[in-house]
Each structure stands twice: as structure tokens, then as C-alpha cells.
């Protein structure tokens, strides 16, 4: 079993199929990524540089935008990724 699942080649995020510890090396398609923090099982890690405001992709589709600059190996979840839909809180 691979450590991560890269669903679509367009995706800048991958799903960790097991818990990944900070500093752990993650291999994907001949490239090595180093996790910048602990990432829980089935949560997401970045495999690209994503600037604040840029889109995050999974399933080859937009799943939201980066709330801050994201580096390869970063844990990506609600702290740095926001939905662009159903946002009644933004006027």
C-alpha cells in the first residue's frame, strides 16, 4: 500500500493513507516530499507550492482556496484551506 494517494494528475494535494509524522519522507512518482508536520490518516498533504488565494485541487477539481502560502509537504486542512462556496459570512 502506498503512503499517499494522488487521485488525479491535476491535483496539488494528496491523501495520506496512513498517519504521517513530521519529518517523514513520502515518495510519490519518483519524487520525495518531507512532511512539515504530523498529518493524520486520510488527511491531505500538499505536493506543490500553492500561493495564498490560489485553488487547491483534489479529484482533478477545485476543492477550495489557500488561506496562506502552502509549501510542498504541508498539512492542508481547514486551517489553511477554505471553501469558496456557501459563504454567507463574506459580504
Amino acid at each position: 500500500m502506498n503512503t499517499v494517494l494522488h487521485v488525479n494528475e491535476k491535483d496539488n494535494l494528496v491523501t495520506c493513507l496512513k498517519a504521517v509524522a513530521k519529518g517523514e519522507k513520502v515518495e510519490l512518482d519518483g519524487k520525495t516530499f518531507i512532511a512539515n508536520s504530523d498529518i493524520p490518516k486520510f488527511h491531505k498533504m500538499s505536493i506543490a507550492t500553492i500561493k495564498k488565494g490560489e485553488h487547491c485541487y483534489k479529484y482533478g477539481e477545485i476543492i477550495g482556496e489557500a488561506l496562506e502560502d502552502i509549501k510542498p509537504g504541508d498539512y492542508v486542512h481547514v486551517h489553511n484551506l477554505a471553501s469558496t462556496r456557501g459563504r454567507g459570512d463574506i459580504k
Partner: protein
Amino acid sequence: MLKISGFRRENGQFGVRNYLLILPTSVCASDTAAKIAAQVPGAIAVPNQHGCCHIGYDLTQTVMTLEGFGKNANVGAVLVVGLGCEGIQAEALADKIRVSGKPVDFIIIQKCGGTLKAISAGVEKAAKMAALLSTQPRVEGDVSDIILGLECGGSDPTSGLASNPAIGYVSDKLVNLGGTSILSETTEVIGAEHLLAARFADEKERAKFLRMVKECEGRAIKLGADLRNGQPTPGNKEGGISTIEEKSLGCMYKAGVSPFQAALEYAEWVPEKKGLYFMDTPGQDIDSITGMVAGGATVIIFSTGRGTPTGSPIAPVIKITGNTDTYNNMIDNIDINAGKIITHGATLKDIGEEAFNLMLEVCQGRLTKAEALGHREFGIYRIGWTF
């Protein structure tokens, strides 16, 4: 030909269960209905929390939900129980259900003269119906008689990777064999609507589908809040789903790749033409399943990542998870482990076939885990105020 066994109704529809439904028209009659059902074998009462002092389409939709439960082919006979003064009148509801051709009767608590006399009259009628149902043997039906409701709840990232694609396999196979399936949960279409809309051949239906999604998102925006406070849920997020778009893109795999025939309103009766339909329901599981069952679904397949016990009063609910840890943790609730796709190298086809074959067995009488544990969750989706 793949065969199932069940009950051919007077209107040609095919049920896989044969319940006697005790149907309260309002919250004021619900407790009495439950007391009648408790006395009669095979009788099921649904806990209706509504049915009075609502107006407009909110009232219409509640009537459609109760009427649809009565008409559902898994129900062999119906006893409607009304208080007498409520908005939804027992006799009128009984008349609507009677169109399906099955035995329907009603009692009114105020006319009976109180709880004790209503229970007495209700049990007398219900017992006769139960005896009648007991004489109906299962007969052969075809797999194309199945109306399958597709549901997901307590999702986590494994839902989109394993269990929902497995449900998509089941739905596509059923549709290809001439059956019917229903995708619901409009909230969980937000962010994936462009992909699903492309599968509507009928332009009018596609526009209706897109309007439903837009109106759903509009309701969240109108509340001035971030939808993410409620959707994805705290459990979705703990599991690893970050946004509604991510949740939706995983959810839509339940509908496989088949084309959509039409977009239905909540609890709208599924047309006779077979195929895949969309129904406008909330993402909340119980209200969603209730809407699909009211629309005629006779079996539900339900994927979960976090684990959930949910059943339905009159339809078997098959539970499937993509998360092996969840399967082991809630093994008394979950029928199929699609987590084997992630952890054991099982293929989507392996699990899809396992799920499809279990669905056939369930449509021949085998109880799902939710049924065996007596889970009968019921919830009417309200869209207006109570006055």
C-alpha cells in the same frame, strides 16, 4: 435474468418488505399511532413531528412525504391515525394513499372519544390488516423492479475514494439492468454540480437541477453564515474533509456514470420510466432517506466513513464504509467493508459486486444490520415555519 422476491402491489409496483404502516397525520396523533403499532405484529408507526399549522409548499411537501410512505411498495396496508382538528386530515390522506390500490383505513381520535377508545378501534382495524398481510407469500420479481436510494452520511475521505465509487458501481449496474436509482442530498452537490449537470440529457431538467443547487447554496448565504459551520460537519472535518466542494466531489461518485433522467422535488414520486434520477433533499441523512422512500425507494444503500446506525421505518438500509477502522469499530452497524479497496488491494469491481449481490439478497428478504437492530429513523424535511 436476476430475480428478487417480494410483493407485487395492485398498481404493479414491487415491494421487498410487507409492512403494515400506522401513519399519524400529525404530531398530536403520533403517540397514539405508536401505541397501536406496539400491539400488532408487523405494524410500524412513524414518529411524525409535524402535520399541523404549516402552510403553502411546506404543507404540500409534508403531505407528499406521508402520502409517499403510505404508497411505498414496501407497505402492504395502511392505517391512518388523525387527531381530528389538525391541518392534515386523516380521511383526505387515506384517500390519497388508497389510489395505490392497497387496503387503507383511518381512525380519528376525537371521534373515537379519546386515547383508549382510539387505541381499541385502531388495534381492531390493524389486527385485521396484519392477518391479511400474513396470507401474502413472497412472489418472484425482477431486478428491474428495484428502486434504489443512494445515501452517504458521516462521510470521511474514504467515502469518496472507496465506498461511494462502490455504490456508483451498484447504481450503474442496476440502471443497466433496467432498474431505478435516486441520487439525493443537494447540499452535497455544491462544487460538483458542473460534472453532474453534464449528465442530464434533457435541458429543462438540467436547468431545474442547477436551480435546486443554486437555491440550496443561496439559503446558506441568506443566513449570513459560512456553510462550513454546518457542512462539512465536525465529524467530516475530523475525518479529513476540509470543504463542501471536497465532500460533494466525493459524494457524487454514488451516482456512477449513468445519465440522469430528471430532477425531482423532495418526496416526489419517481416516474415509471426507469433510470437514474436526482432528488432535491438536504444532506442530512434522515431527512434525505425519508424523502427518497416517500418517492418510492424500496431499498437504500448508504455509505459512511465515520459510522452511523441509521435505518428507515419501511426500507432496508445497507451500510457500506470505505474505512476499515470504522468497519471494525462499528461492525454491528455496517454490512460491507469497502475499506478493503484501500487496505487490501480489493478492486472496485470486487466490492461493487459484493454490494450488488447483498442488495439482491436483501431484496429477497435478508435483513440488513440496521433492520436486525430495529433502526427506524424518520424525519420530514421542513421548508417553512410552524404557525
